[in-house]
């Protein structure tokens, strides 16, 4: 399976990828995107099985990316990994079609709790 990791911070993308491996998802292909627009394009070209996206990014936010994907007919499983995890944001994410929102800082257990149902 293929996972698209979208974050404008290269360091955070590395941390997310490392946590994926620590959580046991080390046999998946990883594709990186550096903002929402890049993620949107790579969903179309790479056809990932899951998108893990930051929320607050330049050019196109993670939420805008998700909304653009859904309006274009894409049903790719999509989850947020973001530094903000308020109840309002979780509701907004769910309303837009996100499966989950993982708040930073996260642990490998948090990843397993949210991803097992998607990638198992």
């Amino acid at each position: 399976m293929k996972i698209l990791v979208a974050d404008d911070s290269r360091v955070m993308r590395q941390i997310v990828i490392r946590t994926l491996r620590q959580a046991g998802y080390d046999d998946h292909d990883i594709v990186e995107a550096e903002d929402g627009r890049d993620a949107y394009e790579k969903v179309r070209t790479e056809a990932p099985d899951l998108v893990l996206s930051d929320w607050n990014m330049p050019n196109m936010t993670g939420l805008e990316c998700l909304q653009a994907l859904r309006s274009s007919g894409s049903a790719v499983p999509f989850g947020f990994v973001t530094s903000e995890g308020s109840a309002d944001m979780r509701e907004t994410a769910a309303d837009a079609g996100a499966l989950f929102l993982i708040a930073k800082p996260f642990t490998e257990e948090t990843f397993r709790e949210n991803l097992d149902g998607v990638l198992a």
Partner: protein
Amino acid sequence: MTLAPDATARAARPLITSLIDEATVGAIAGEAWVALVGEEELLVPVPGALPEDALSTWVDVVGPWTGSVVLTAGHGTAVELTRALLAEATPAVLEPEDVTDAFGEIANVVGGNVKAALPGPSTLSLPQVGDAPAVRNPDDVCRVEVLWRGQPLVITVQGALPSTSPQHENPHHENPQHENPHHENPHPNGVSL
């Protein structure tokens, strides 16, 4: 006596000290360090003198309370933090952009969690790195000083707006910074909102 509309708005503005305390800010930062840097990477609540090459990173919160969440540390500490965050992905030669990225991301995580503890709705900016934003109102500051790997780190949650009290109208730097031509994103005006 009737206050002018602007004065009324300023008087009603909450100070950060009424919204969050040092223990909460310290706990948020400590949790970020343990989760992102490493399980044994503790922040020790002991103050230390910042070196002259201190560098700041911050995110802005705009909402019922408006200000910045600022992390300040020596340049060497920021570099060490970058290596710790990148771990096995650390390149042989660390570029300044890597340090800006890593230091900023820590501010993003700490700031995001501080924002969640404050009244909303509010927005969070992308992280910036450079000279610390000026403190506009010394009463609107929550300051936490810690040591990481023996090196000082200061976390401030500081209001962006001046005091309603006349004696605090002159902005000044909470942590006096020295001019550093290597700062990628200088912040000369101290306000990024």
